[in-house]
């Protein structure tokens, strides 16, 4: 991970040498010892490092959220995407971009809107599921249905929106870890710092629940409460990340599977490692996105899929036969 940060920091369209970059980084820690141009300092500290850390944090959060959702719902297809949370965020953002309406006005309109709508989607999903006392199948079906509803809403907005707004929506939906700042980064970081340990702590319950609700209950887990609280926490993580970086796909789905295929199903290890793998995948994909057709920056959502799918298929084909 440190390697990724070190490599990624040196790459980019500004034409800085490796020495310039490390000098700029070091200068902040040991002021006065290095001769750094204001340009290098600004590029490294305001563009590159926030971008790299956003990639790592977002990948980490999506990986953890995916692993927990799959465990809680006992379904290998569960992820922030399949459950409609990302679609809802996309709809919220489109609403802000195309119509300029939202919950709070100002420069954070799009982010706030995406966040509010993805939470709304979760609340609706949980409300529907609570009518069947938190049945996982109901949660999944409700999530998928809501996802389609919000996608349809986004399409409708695009259909009637003016071309520039539509283009902005498309760019937003593709996802980008570059639209960031230390301020946004710290918000994502704080969210993860508060929520991720809770999920790691509950990974025992997750293990018990993956063997069925009855088994989990007989092992002392309050299943309904555990399921709903974990869904709320993971949705909060997803909502935060997606509203800052857009709908970056696939990480939440594949990272946990890659980890499980490598080390087995014990969630005490699967959950944190899914975060690690997610972070590496996303930050790695971002390097490729910047470099592959430089100076054109490719959309990172596309790169995660292009890199992740072959990796995923490779793991599926050489998996142990009893997997899934």
């Amino acid at each position: 991970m440190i390697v990724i940060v070190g490599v990624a920091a040196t790459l980019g369209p500004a034409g800085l040498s490796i020495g310039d970059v490390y000098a700029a980084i070091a200068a902040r820690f040991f002021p006065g010892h290095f001769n750094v141009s204001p340009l290098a300092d600004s590029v490294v500290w305001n563009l590159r490092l926030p971008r790299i850390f956003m990639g790592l944090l977002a990948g980490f959060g999506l990986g953890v959220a995916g692993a927990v959702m799959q465990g809680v719902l006992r379904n290998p297809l569960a992820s922030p995407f399949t459950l409609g949370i990302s679609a809802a965020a996309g709809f919220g953002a489109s609403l802000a971009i195309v119509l300029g309406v939202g919950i709070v006005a100002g420069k954070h309109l799009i982010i706030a809107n995406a966040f509010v709508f993805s939470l709304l989607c979760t609340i609706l999903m949980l409300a529907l599921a609570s009518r069947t006392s938190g049945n996982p199948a109901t949660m999944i079906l409700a999530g998928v249905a809501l996802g389609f509803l919000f996608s349809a809403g986004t399409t409708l907005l695009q259909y009637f929106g003016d071309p520039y707004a539509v283009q902005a929506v498309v760019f937003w939906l593709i996802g980008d870890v570059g639209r960031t700042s230390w301020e946004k980064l710290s918000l994502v970081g704080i969210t993860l710092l508060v929520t991720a340990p809770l999920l790691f702590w509950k990974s025992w319950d997750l293990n018990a629940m993956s063997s069925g609700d009855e088994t989990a209950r007989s092992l002392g887990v309050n299943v309904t409460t555990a399921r709903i609280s974990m869904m709320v926490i993971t949705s909060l993580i997803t909502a935060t990340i997606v509203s800052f970086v857009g709908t970056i796909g696939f990480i939440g789905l594949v990272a946990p599977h890659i980890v499980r295929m490598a080390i087995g199903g014990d969630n005490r290890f699967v959950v944190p490692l899914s975060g690690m793998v997610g972070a590496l995948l996303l930050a790695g994909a971002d390097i490729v996105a910047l470099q592959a057709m430089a100076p054109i920056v490719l959309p990172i959502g596309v790169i995660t899929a292009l890199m992740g799918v072959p990796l995923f298929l490779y793991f599926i084909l050489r998996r142990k036969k009893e997997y899934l």
Partner: protein
Amino acid sequence: MNLKVQAVTFSYNSTPVLDNITFELQPREIVALVGPNGSGKSTLLKCIDRILRPQHGKISIDSQDIRRMSQQEISKKLGYVPQRVISAFPLSVFETVLMGRRPHIAWRTSQKDIDAVLKSISLLELEHLAMRDFAELSGGEMQRVLLARAVAQEAGILLLDEPTSNLDIRHQIEAMEILRQLVTVKNISAIVAVHDLNLAARYADRMIMLSGGRICATGSPSEVLTADGISKSYGIRVTVRNENGRPFIIPLGIDTGSVPVA
């Protein structure tokens, strides 16, 4: 540990399943729960473990009402062995047994937990399977792993839901022998739902026969397994022989004269 079930009544969405069930489980006793399909055996076990909540009646462990206990407290006293487990994701045998320590573990596994898991794995002779994937095991091996998990849980009372239903005759006998041994060695008691009346008669100290959600007979195997009683609850004709002090049932055919209650 002493378990008391008093006037328990349960229904699934207004379909009554259990009606006024009362019995007591003594320490170091194996009670077999028998009765036709749908007579409420599994439901009763789930009510006792508070997986299901009965609408009426009271269940207490050592005269403590389980409604006043948390799921975690209950799980330290009652171990539930389901018919079978389909895990959504791969887990090794060791990890499956380790899950039995969930009620005792606060944050991370201690040496004590690992020791308890290793002990129960060796008690059930599963050492050679410890690192295998649970889903790859045969039915008999899975049953032994689930038993090992209940042993690792260190519960005073085991509730087993048809532990022999997927096993061949040797493994059926083996499972019951293991249970008998556990009850003696670990000083615990067990309630076992069984379909095979002869198996139940051979290994149970006491039997409870359910029919249509009611207890229709209770007592020693020879008191419960009478030709008349079996005919009434199952709707079949049988001959009951006595083999070494245990009743032995030979089915003769469907009893066209009577319709089973359930």
